[in-house]
């Protein structure tokens, strides 16, 4: 089978095929075109200017964008000349007279879409991925340089020259190089491969950078490029989340080459998918979006510019609880309720609850159509993910794309986004959750908590009947995500229920935990170990009485940890520190600043978003060291982490030991306590 797995280049594209375990490359001359629309007068003027350039070929044409047919000029040219041509058109039109389409599309994506080709094609959704030979390279750095090398999981001696020859041979045999470079180890390894070997695989290093996403600062480490190889950094977002199968799936459905897919965010992948869909359907893609937010009153803005509905739970322990979840709620709303920039208006179609907008359901919306395939694919892999790890990984990749597909509608530069669509989606989401609540209450349940697309309910009603009724009314799939013997919603510092900190024991004996140390990456292992052991202790306690009976054992466990804290291995006290800004920007001398300052004194610069593993030697003296540095452990400092790790379980014990308190044992927190 001739299997296309990569496309590189621009004016002259290279198509990488796999043909019975052999890699073949074919070269294709690539010409492309852009489309320019504007008033007839301005287009006439532009055409006269184009007549003066002898290498430009153009024709008068009519093509469609998502809103309808446009008359304009199609200019045929090589991809490398598009940027220059657009600059000239903008100069001629004073940057406002012309709208340019199909002007900034990745050449590989465009070639694949216009020729209806797919990367990593599979015969059916259940088929396995056909991936070329892969080599994995990683290692560890010490202060004196390379400490160890691991190639395909095998350890090599960094001091032996032959090791680098062995690596070069494996790179030669492989098409994909997966490398870890958070400590710059692979840079170091591959430079030596380049120096000691034939020099054919000399790496090119692209410097890393910090970036912010959803309020969190991340760091992309230095990237490596090797001529003729697909290089994937192992800590890149999608690879670390969904593995190679997830990345291949992303490449397959977004038409982005594998290496590019490993570098982009899921949001950019969704954008690529939409652009690819538009090209396959013959719909023009605007260079700059011209879909500005419509005028609205301040009252309208306050009413519509809102997110999902999040209820306020009463903190406490609840028994026999069902968690019901809308499946891919926001993408389902886009698809099933036909939300797209061109279907939304204020005067035509069905009213969207809680907004001044209406949706025209007579015509299929572009966004809704483009995301339908993605949604159906994800719901399929979600239903079969338990069968095979490949499906589970594909499901993760698609889940991330769907998650960002909604947010992308509100992004100012999204090609097919519009803020009103974003508002209509959240409004419909709030309406759906409220309908689900009402139906649950009318069918014998009481609602404990709700977060955007999930509800926690308890009662004697028929859950399956409830789900059918909700699906019937909202047109959004809904499933039981968990049946809990008990679930504990924790109090926040203010005493009200915390929205996203809870621990629940499912009827199958597994726990669902959110917001606890056991799931955090910025706490020492000892905190996690304590919480895991506490959960292990409680895993067979399906009732309040059973939990109460474990009270003594729990307090014994707590004592064992605090009294024997010195007996735990040093690794249990290592802390992951991820500064969110530059050292100079910290106003107080907190952990991040102390660590950055310490590393700077050792000659290393820590970038915002970069993770560093440290140990606290003496917190009073603000003494923090690298994990292989001098000094012991400040057990007093870590004791406070242990106390914090025990708080949720202390609260659980407090809940089960209060007599006659029903589902809300914490009534003392309220004004009129019994």
């Amino acid at each position: 089978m001739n299997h296309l797995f990569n496309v590189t280049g621009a004016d002259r594209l290279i198509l990488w095929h796999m043909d019975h375990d052999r890699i073949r490359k074919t070269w294709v001359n690539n010409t492309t075109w852009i489309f320019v629309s504007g008033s007839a007068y301005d287009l006439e003027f532009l055409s006269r200017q184009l007549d003066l350039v002898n290498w430009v070929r153009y024709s008068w044409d009519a093509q469609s964008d998502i809103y309808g047919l446009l008359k304009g000029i199609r200019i045929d040219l090589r991809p490398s000349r598009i940027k220059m041509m657009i600059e000239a058109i903008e100069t001629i039109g004073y940057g406002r007279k012309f709208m340019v389409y199909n002007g900034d599309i990745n050449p590989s994506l465009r070639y694949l879409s216009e020729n209806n080709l797919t990367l990593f094609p599979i015969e059916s959704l259940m088929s396995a991925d056909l991936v070329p030979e892969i080599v994995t390279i990683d290692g560890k750095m010490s202060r004196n340089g390379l400490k160890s090398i691991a190639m395909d999981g095998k350890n090599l001696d960094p001091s032996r020259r032959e090791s680098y020859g062995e690596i070069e041979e494996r790179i030669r045999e492989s098409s994909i190089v997966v490398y870890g470079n958070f400590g710059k180890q692979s840079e170091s390894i591959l430079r030596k491969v380049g120096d000691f070997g034939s020099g054919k695989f000399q790496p090119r290093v692209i410097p890393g950078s910090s970036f912010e996403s959803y309020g969190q600062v991340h760091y992309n480490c230095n990237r490596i490029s090797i001529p003729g190889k697909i290089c994937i950094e192992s800590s890149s977002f999608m690879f670390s989340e969904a593995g190679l199968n997830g990345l291949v799936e992303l490449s397959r459905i977004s038409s982005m080459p594998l290496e590019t897919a490993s570098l982009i965010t899921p949001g950019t992948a969704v954008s690529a998918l939409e652009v690819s869909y538009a090209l396959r359907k013959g719909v023009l893609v605007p260079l700059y979006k011209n879909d500005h937010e419509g005028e609205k009153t301040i009252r309208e803005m306050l009413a519509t510019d809102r997110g999902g509905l999040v209820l306020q739970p009463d903190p406490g322990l609840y028994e026999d609880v069902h968690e019901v979840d809308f499946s891919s709620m926001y993408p389902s709303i886009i698809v099933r309720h036909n939300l797209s920039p061109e279907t939304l208006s204020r005067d035509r179609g069905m009213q969207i609850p809680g907004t001044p907008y209406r949706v025209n359901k007579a015509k299929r919306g572009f966004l809704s159509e483009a995301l339908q395939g993605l949604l159906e694919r994800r719901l399929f892999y979600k239903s079969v993910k338990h069968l095979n790890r490949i499906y589970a990984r594909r499901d993760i990749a698609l889940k991330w794309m769907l998650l960002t597909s909604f947010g992308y509608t509100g992004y100012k530069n999204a090609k097919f986004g519009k803020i009103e669509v974003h508002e209509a989606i959240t409004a419909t989401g709030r309406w759906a959750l409220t309908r689900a609540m009402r139906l649950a209450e009318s069918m014998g349940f009481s609602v404990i908590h709700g977060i955007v697309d999930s509800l926690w309910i308890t009662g004697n009603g028929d859950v399956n009947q409830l789900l059918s009724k909700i699906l019937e009314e909202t047109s959004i799939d809904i499933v039981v995500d968990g049946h809990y013997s008990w679930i504990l919603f924790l109090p926040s510092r203010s005493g009200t229920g915390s929205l996203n900190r809870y621990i629940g024991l499912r009827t199958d004996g597994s726990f669902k935990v959110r917001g606890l140390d056991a799931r955090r990456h910025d706490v020492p292992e000892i905190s996690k170990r304590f919480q895991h052991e506490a959960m292990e202790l409680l895993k067979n306690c399906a009732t309040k009485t059973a939990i109460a009976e474990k009270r003594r054992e729990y307090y014994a466990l707590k004592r064992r940890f605090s009294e024997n804290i010195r007996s735990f291995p040093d690794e249990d006290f290592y802390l992951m520190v991820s500064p969110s800004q530059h050292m100079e920007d910290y106003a107080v001398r907190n952990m991040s600043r102390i660590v950055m300052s310490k590393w700077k004194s050792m000659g290393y610069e820590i970038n915002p978003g970069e993770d560093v593993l440290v140990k606290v030697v003496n917190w009073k003296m603000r003494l923090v060291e690298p994990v292989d540095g001098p000094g012991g452990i400040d057990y007093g400092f870590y004791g406070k982490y242990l106390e914090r790790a025990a708080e949720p379980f202390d609260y659980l014990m407090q809940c089960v030991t209060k007599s006659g308190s029903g589902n809300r044992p914490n009534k003392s927190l309220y004004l009129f306590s019994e």
Partner: protein
Amino acid sequence: MGRSTPTLRQATDTLVERFSRMKSCMRSSDMEWFDALIRMGRKHSPEISEAGLDPETGFFISALMEILKKMDDLTQSDKV
């Protein structure tokens, strides 16, 4: 990306921060009651947000509702 106005919970936090300045000159015995009132005022944030009320009005409606509920609880227990 997405919304540009603060959520009602964020607006209520600012309001509570303003109210909490009262605590500095409050008797210790009153502080507990004050904290309880704040908790009650926060309780119905989602509904207040849905109605588009201003945070201050919403806060007091929420607190009044919770006080009514507690009064009802007490009346019920008296009947028993």
